[in-house]
């Protein structure tokens, strides 16, 4: 049995690597086939002659396309993503500097969204067929249909500009310097800045766990062990939480892995609205300043996280629910 499982993990790992390779290849061609000379794409005219030469060599831009491709793949493996035009620094450095901010924002939003979502889902399943349920579903659909940046704009206008409770952007008040990352995480100022963007992102993420939990609850409630618990005369609270919710919860955990992938994409606009210096905002900045190497690096990282999280979700799914046929999800 264990053997089959490991085989599955191995097969999925192979698939993940293949997917990443194809995505990087597509990206390679997108960036080389951009209008204009690929040299223009990779070498900023403001670089010195010497810098230009180094980059030419590093990316083999004077060589034929297939050799450039091999060099590109080799560089990717080494984590060498080139130099950012805008920051005059290596792309990897620039990305690593903002990555923690994206992770803080994402994690806090995920925690809020999944705890509220799970409880909300149980509640809606409990109130099945009542007016509250219809109302709850409609509100949830609204949160999924509302543009995230617009929700962010309204929260900003109300809580920051009108009521002046929260700051309007950034990770800390201008001029604040933290000696260490830890010090930043311990300051109240940081959390004040985090609150609105995290709330906006969690509103966006809330729909999936909530609706998923609700429909799982409705499925599970017809299972014999839940019926049995009901017949034994246990209280509704006990049946709901102890018997139904526990089992309905499993798929939500796997959905959370996919949720991280979602959040990476959703971050792009939210980080921009709140001037939150993270990966998404970096990508937008890179594209609008035609900083090709930086855009490419940021995109590969976001795609990497998504592909990896899909992998985690699949593995978790097969581990948590032994009934699942390993060949497919259901």
């Amino acid at each position, binding site marked *: 049995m264990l053997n089959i499982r490991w085989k599955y993990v191995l097969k999925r790992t192979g*698939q993940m690597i*293949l*997917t*990443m390779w*194809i*995505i990087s290849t*597509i990206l390679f061609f*997108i960036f080389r086939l*951009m*209008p204009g000379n690929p040299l223009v794409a990779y070498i900023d005219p403001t670089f010195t002659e010497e810098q230009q030469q180094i980059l030419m060599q590093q990316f083999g831009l004077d060589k034929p396309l297939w050799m450039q491709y091999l060099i590109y793949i080799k560089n990717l493996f080494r984590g060498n993503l080139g130099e950012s035009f805008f920051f005059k620094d290596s792309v990897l450095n620039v990305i690593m500097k903002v990555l923690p901010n994206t992770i803080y924002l994402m994690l806090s939003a995920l925690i809020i969204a999944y705890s509220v979502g799970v409880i909300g889902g149980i509640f809606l399943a409990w109130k099945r067929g009542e007016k509250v349920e219809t109302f709850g*579903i409609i509100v949830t*659909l*609204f949160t*999924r*249909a*509302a*543009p*995230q*940046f*617009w929700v962010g*704009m*309204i929260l*900003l*206008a109300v809580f*920051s*500009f*009108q009521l002046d409770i929260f700051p*309007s952007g950034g990770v800390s008040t201008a001029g604040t310097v933290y000696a260490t990352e830890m010090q930043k995480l311990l300051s109240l100022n940081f959390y004040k800045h985090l609150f609105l963007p995290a709330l906006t992102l969690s509103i966006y993420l809330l*729909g999936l766990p909530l*609706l*998923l939990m*609700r*429909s799982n609850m409705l499925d599970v409630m017809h299972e014999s062990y839940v019926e049995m618990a009901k017949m034994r005369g246990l209280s509704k609270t006990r049946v709901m939480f102890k018997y139904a919710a526990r089992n309905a919860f499993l*798929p939500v955990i*796997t*959905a959370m892995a*996919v949720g991280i*992938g*979602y959040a*990476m*994409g*959703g971050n*792009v*606009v939210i980080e*921009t609205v709140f001037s939150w210096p993270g990966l998404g905002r970096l*990508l*937008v900045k890179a*594209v*609008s300043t*035609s900083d090709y190497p930086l*855009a490419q690096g*940021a*995109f590969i990282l*976001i*795609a990497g996280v*998504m592909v990896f999280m*899909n992998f985690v*979700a699949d593995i978790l*799914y097969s581990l948590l629910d032994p009934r699942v046929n390993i060949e497919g*999800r259901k």
Partner: protein
Amino acid sequence: MLKILKNVFGQTYKFLRNDKFAMTGAIIYLIFFIIAILAPYLAPFDPHEMQREGANFMFNKPPGDEFILGTTNMGRDIFSQLIYGTRPALMVGFSAAFFVMIAGTLVGLISGYYGGRTDSILMRITDVAFGIPFTPFVIVLVGFLGPSIWNIVVAMAILLWRDTARVIRSQVLTVRERSFVEAARVSGASDLRIMFVYIAPNILPLSFLYGSLAVGWAILTEAAVSFLGFGDPQVISWGYMLNDAYVSQALSRGAYHWFVPPGIFIMLAVMAGFYIGRGSEEILHPQLKDY
């Protein structure tokens, strides 16, 4: 052919009649269509024109009798912009959905019908499409190809077909086993004939549902892309209006009349798509899928 079309529309109509949610969605779209067509008559001003009174420009006017929703910081009429914004929204939404439906249905049909190696290659490609982050991809492509509405549509169409393809494929797998398909095969019908004459009509309602969801996603994404400043500068869309409001400090001035209405319109348009698509319990039974 006519019979098939009649059958498809008949089924769609029956579906709409039986589903209150879907009916609501269809009505919302109908109203948006009417607004888009009648925009020049409904909008009191040219949305690009800077309004003035005598020698003075009407900058940042609050809502009033003359300007229903006030004016922008450049003196443009917000209400007129809102009305004209219906046009790009529908154009983007429906053209993206059209490509998505065609591509997704074809991939799903071929994959499900032929099975075997064809199936596994096409499904691998679908997996790759699922691995690409949607919004960042559209931003990168549009940012580099140049800001135009059609580039946005193309960038979205390249990825959005993936859901439709998966669902259509699994539907084809069951339809393929039905007896009328078997009968057609025995009587010597070609693969193409079986796929398009016998199987396709049975999956078209499903691809319509996925198409309607795609309308919603496309409108939402166009708004996000325009908001980030990669939109078509010639076209006043709801996303453009929000971008305009954001960069012109409308938030700190508390100009709610400027940035609230476009968001509500986007939300209504997206909801309408969701409502129609809900028929397949897409929304109430969300699978592990991502955008």
